[in-house]
């Protein structure tokens, strides 16, 4: 008897291999070439600082996003206070703000020559050195930037988890003497652990992959180190090795986290799916809660968006007009296609791993997830390597058959771009979907199978509907990420193809921040549309399911 591979696992392995190819091609450089000189130079001079800054950044951002994200998610799901319904969806908004734009805006606002300090100096007739003012362009400032734009990852995923049918277990906690806070720390939070970890991991991976913000702030991190090895020292291999080291670190952390879960599960064990009634806070506490939700929103969105708007009005992009419709359309189409694909593929991969008896799909999924931690330029090159290779085979084949050279079939179009996005952002969808899938008991699968449904139709008829909220969340996260993505878009896009992000970059890279504000604002605005729609949709799903 032959062991048969199911269509599901074959599909999943193929998809995973394809998506992981760019990351693997980064790894494949690890053993090539002699990079001893570069390494010893880096180790002697800057590596320590890179590592130190990166660790500080990770710890700061990790603590920041998880505390802001979890607190706001918990407040809006479990309690009732003034403005709760507004905060439920508004807390997502900072997501639309690219971190590097935030960095520009805040720097402009807060730096020595900026309006705030300028005003202070004028009003109080201070001079340099007369007063202390926090400097944004430091590690601390970078932590703040990332914290405020990235906490929505944790907020959204944790919120899904809090809302996901844990009513009975919360009640059990209450009968065992836990108050609302105790329930939070001892029941809700541990049960939401995979979600909080997923959200935090995403935020951290995005932080690790960031180049724009940290280099603008002059904060040397592992990623700026990769760029330095690659561009300044001209050592591509060493750059790849540095990337690989970064990824190894990420794998290590994620693996340790998985292992520490042991055999614990996080699904609902109770048939009581309805959430307990929200606890209505007394006014004073309610205002405090509203304040706690307002601060991240203010700092992560309202203030920077307001500043951008101010700039855009004062002296925005001279090209504003019909061209922007095209840019917005390009961005939107790319983001929408990628979001849909990413969600579908993530479901496929997560579901295959759920059903698999072997560890292989889980390992593959972790590798697929790594794309998010790889700096955009590196992944762009990582995408180009396999893609152009395939392209060349295709071209050769074509030429052998038809005698003409078709040029590059894949790399020439947006397909390559979407592939690159998937390689980078599938992690986002995957983490979201995986954490929610884990909340569905396996008896749901069994029940459906016993009623005559195969794996695929069980997926379609049982899991997908139950995951609806999370799928929308995943789609939204990917959508917004694609809207903001820059390095890969720059290199891989086809001829004469601009997006809002490239437009903003063109100006910002030329140090024309005010003019870049227009495109940046439109990124935010275009991101807002689906965000409104999806947040409403998610709320509706949640409300209906009680």
């Amino acid at each position, binding site marked *: 008897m032959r062991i048969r591979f199911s269509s599901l696992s074959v599909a999943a392995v193929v998809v995973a291999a394809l998506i992981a190819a760019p990351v693997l091609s980064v790894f494949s450089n690890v053993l090539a070439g002699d990079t001893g000189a570069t390494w010893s130079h880096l180790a002697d001079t800057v590596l320590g600082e890179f590592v130190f800054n990166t660790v500080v950044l990770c710890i700061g951002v990790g603590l920041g996003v998880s505390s802001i994200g979890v607190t706001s998610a918990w407040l809006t799901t479990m309690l009732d206070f003034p403005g709760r319904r507004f905060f439920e969806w508004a807390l997502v908004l900072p997501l639309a703000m690219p971190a590097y734009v935030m960095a520009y805006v805040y720097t402009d606002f807060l730096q020595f020559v900026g309006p705030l300090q300028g005003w202070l100096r004028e009003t109080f007739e201070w001079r340099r050195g007369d007063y202390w003012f926090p400097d944004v362009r430091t590690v601390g400032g970078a932590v703040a930037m990332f914290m405020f734009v990235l906490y929505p990852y944790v907020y959204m995923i944790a919120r899904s988890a809090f809302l996901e049918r844990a009513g*009975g*277990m919360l*009640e*059990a*906690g*209450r*009968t*065992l*003497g*836990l*108050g*609302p806070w*105790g329930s939070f720390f*001892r*029941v809700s939070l*541990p*049960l939401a*652990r995979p979600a909080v970890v997923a959200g935090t991991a995403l935020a951290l991976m995005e932080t690790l992959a960031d180049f724009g913000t940290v280099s603008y702030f002059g904060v040397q991190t592992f990623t700026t180190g990769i760029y330095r090895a690659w561009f300044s020292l001209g050592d591509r291999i060493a750059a790849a090795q540095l990337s690989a080291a970064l990824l190894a670190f990420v794998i290590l952390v994620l693996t340790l986290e998985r292992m520490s879960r042991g*055999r*614990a*599960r*996080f*699904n*609902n*064990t*109770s*048939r*009581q799916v309805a959430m*307990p*009634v929200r606890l209505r806070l007394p006014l004073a506490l309610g205002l405090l809660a509203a304040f706690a939700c307002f601060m991240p929103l203010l700092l992560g969105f309202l203030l920077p968006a307001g500043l951008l708007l101010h700039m855009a009005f004062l002296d925005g992009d001279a090209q504003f007009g019909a061209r922007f419709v095209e840019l917005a359309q390009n961005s939107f189409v790319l983001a929408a296609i990628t979001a849909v694909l990413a969600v579908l593929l993530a479901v496929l991969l997560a579901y295959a791993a759920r059903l698999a008896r072997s560890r292989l799909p889980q390992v593959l999924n972790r590798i697929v997830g790594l794309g998010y931690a790889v700096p955009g330029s590196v992944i762009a090159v990582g995408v180009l390597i396999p893609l152009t290779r395939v392209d060349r085979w295709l071209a050769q084949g074509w030429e052998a058959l038809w005698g003409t050279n078709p040029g590059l079939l894949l790399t020439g179009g947006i397909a390559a771009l979407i592939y690159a996005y998937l390689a980078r952002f599938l992690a986002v969808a995957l983490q979201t979907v995986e954490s929610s899938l884990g909340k569905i008991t396996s008896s749901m699968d069994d029940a459906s199978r016993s009623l005559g449904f195969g794996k695929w139709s069980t997926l379609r008829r049982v899991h997908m509907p139950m995951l609806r909220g999370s799928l929308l969340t995943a789609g939204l996260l990917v959508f917004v990420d694609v809207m903001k993505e820059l390095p890969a878009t720059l290199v891989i896009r086809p001829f004469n193809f601009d997006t809002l992000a490239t437009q903003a970059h063109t100006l910002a890279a030329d140090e024309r921040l005010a003019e870049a504000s227009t495109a940046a604002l439109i990124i935010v605005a275009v991101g807002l549309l689906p965000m409104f729609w999806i947040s409403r949709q998610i709320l509706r799903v949640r409300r209906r399911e009680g």
Partner: protein
Amino acid sequence: MSHLDLSRIDLAFGSQLVVRQLSLQLEKGRIGCLLGPSGCGKTTVLRCIAGFERLAAGEIRLDGEVVSTPRHMLPPERRRIGMVFQDYALFPHLSVADNIGFGLRRDSAAVRNARVDELLALVGLAGQGRKYPHEMSGGQQQRVALARALAPKPSLLLLDEPFSNLDVELRERLSYEVREIIKATDTTAILVTHDQHEAFAVADEIGIMHEGRIQQWDTPYNLYHRPANRFVADFIGQGAFLRGKVLDDHRVQIELGVLDSAQPLVCCADCAGCVHGSPVDVLLRPDDLVHDDASPLRAEVVHKAFRGADILYTLRLAGGARVLSLVPSHHNHAIGERIGIRLDVDHVVTFSDERADECAPTHPAAALA
């Protein structure tokens, strides 16, 4: 003062009233039991007591303190209750030992571990503390839920079908031990169960619920022998109703003869019935009809259920009415056979038949088994 006092509580889900004007009192250290058909509101009553549901009317007092009214609710965690949920609601992220020790967070680790081990042993799961809930069988999970609720020594225990997934032997042992614990610690408890024997064995007082109301709150003996209405008579134990005519205070004429009651006839409490000549329905329990080969009275076997020690025969009388009889299991008769029976009635229970519907709400599944 009662330890637990529910007075005229109403509870609604949306517009549907699920608990209606329900009152009950329980003294400290007593074990009450709620019995009733599926969906009658038993779990809901427990949830009201625990503080999970907001009352639509009435109030609940614990130790004299008002804990629930339609406007005010003392949070569940401040009621010192322990609850076994019908669906267990174990924590999937915690091992069995951690589940059981969950409510003991104020104790030192040593004390907690000792208590957890003690409870694991009690529920027959010694040494299995390191497993996770999903690695346990249904009945094992149920026992963990029980242990978890007992661990913090609550002053009020709410047990929602805590033994439903256990085998008879384990169920009897555990219910016995839980009763001992409750009595030894002067805990008050409410048990919900579908197993009447269990209710009889464990509870001091039993309430029969139907459609959100308590029909009778009484001792097991009285429920069986002096049911307050036709619903209770029907629900508790087995039996059949036979048409009869009242002869006098102590006697009723039925198809099988004249029943002579030691006490004056027991009628439905709030019925006018029981005057001479009035037609009544007489409840015949399976043990009221004794199998006797020598008896001239004969009935045809229409159904039989082997029950181990005895066989429960469903018999058709000459007049067509059906009655039940419990016969030691070596009297094995075939279906269709006509066997001898004899009346051996101790308590005569009658219900006036005109007003039957009012006396005893009809029950959807009341058809005779």
